[in-house]
């Protein structure tokens, strides 16, 4: 048979009755999967925003009680990280539904998105958590903070650090590796 004949055979196929769709189950599944897909990252972003937001309030109140320029600066910086996290979240949500025009294009896009998230995690640790921890540790030593305050501040930093590291190690890096493996496998064909 020539290819035109094979195409004719193929085109006879209407496929209408090949399967019966359980429509309700399809809608339930879509709703469930849609929500599950980004829930973990949503939780993480919310936690970081809440922790930092709370820290901003604590520092602001602290600054009011005992006026000190750096408390307000610190509070403002914390607030900036909340805004940055929310901006990042908005951007991620916006790009979540973006489809490229090809298999490789879509894969590259997915890898690029994952890279972006990994970089963000790294930035949160190196560019924010470490300097802030050092800064506030120094400040608390200087001002003789109570043990409760030490515990509160340090436990919040520790929690934020563990959350960021968990996200990076368990979600994004394995996902990136999986996508790269798939892309390499497909590339081997060409």
């Amino acid at each position: 048979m020539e290819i035109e004949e094979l195409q004719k055979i193929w085109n006879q196929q209407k496929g209408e009755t090949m399967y019966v769709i359980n429509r309700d189950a399809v809608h339930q599944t879509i709703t469930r999967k849609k929500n599950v897909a980004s829930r973990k990252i949503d939780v993480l972003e919310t936690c970081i925003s809440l922790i930092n937001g709370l820290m901003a309030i604590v520092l602001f109140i602290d600054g009011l009680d005992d006026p000190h320029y750096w408390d307000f600066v610190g509070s403002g910086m914390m607030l900036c990280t909340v805004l940055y996290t929310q901006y990042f979240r908005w951007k991620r949500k916006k790009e979540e539904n973006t489809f490229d025009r090809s298999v490789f294009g879509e894969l590259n896009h997915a890898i690029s998105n994952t890279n972006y998230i990994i970089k963000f995690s790294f930035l949160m640790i190196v560019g924010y958590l470490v300097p802030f921890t050092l800064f506030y540790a120094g400040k608390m030593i200087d001002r003789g903070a109570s043990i409760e305050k030490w515990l509160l501040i340090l436990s919040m930093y520790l929690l934020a650090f563990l959350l960021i590291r968990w996200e990076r190690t368990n979600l994004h890096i394995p996902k990136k590796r999986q996508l790269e493996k798939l892309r390499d496998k497909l590339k081997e064909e060409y």
Partner: protein
Amino acid sequence: MESKQRKIFDEWLAGYRALIFKVIRSYAFNSEDESDLFQEVCLQVYRSIPNFKGKSAVSTWLYRIALNTAIKWSTKEKKHVDGHQEIGNVNQLLSAQEETQDERVGWLYLQIREFNEIDRSLSLLLLEGYSYQEMSKMMGISESNIGVKIHRIKKQLISNSKNYSNGN
């Protein structure tokens, strides 16, 4: 917005289910896999609705999404063999039905399944009559590479069809 998206999804599913079924049948080999892949394709189609600007035909758009999803799913699916993923808890979204049709269609599916993930997509697009240019856009592969691949696919299909016609 959500209800509009759902309406479009229902319309696409009703109007183009044959297209989706062809992809499912080419990539999934048992009823659990069929349902699993079908739910993945439906999810991706649903998510893609806000991005559909009408620059291509709906069928082309759906083919691209269904094939991209099937290729990715197919690679992930191999984990099932190693027992890394559970497949027993997948909802039965599809029930296979007997379709009275030319038995050569079934033979064609067997041939398609013999190809690797990318060639399966290309053979489907070839049988659907898409041009090299359209295939290139959908797959993200250069037209010259498509040409080489399609030449090999055609050669294999024609050769196997001769054996089939001879009853081998």
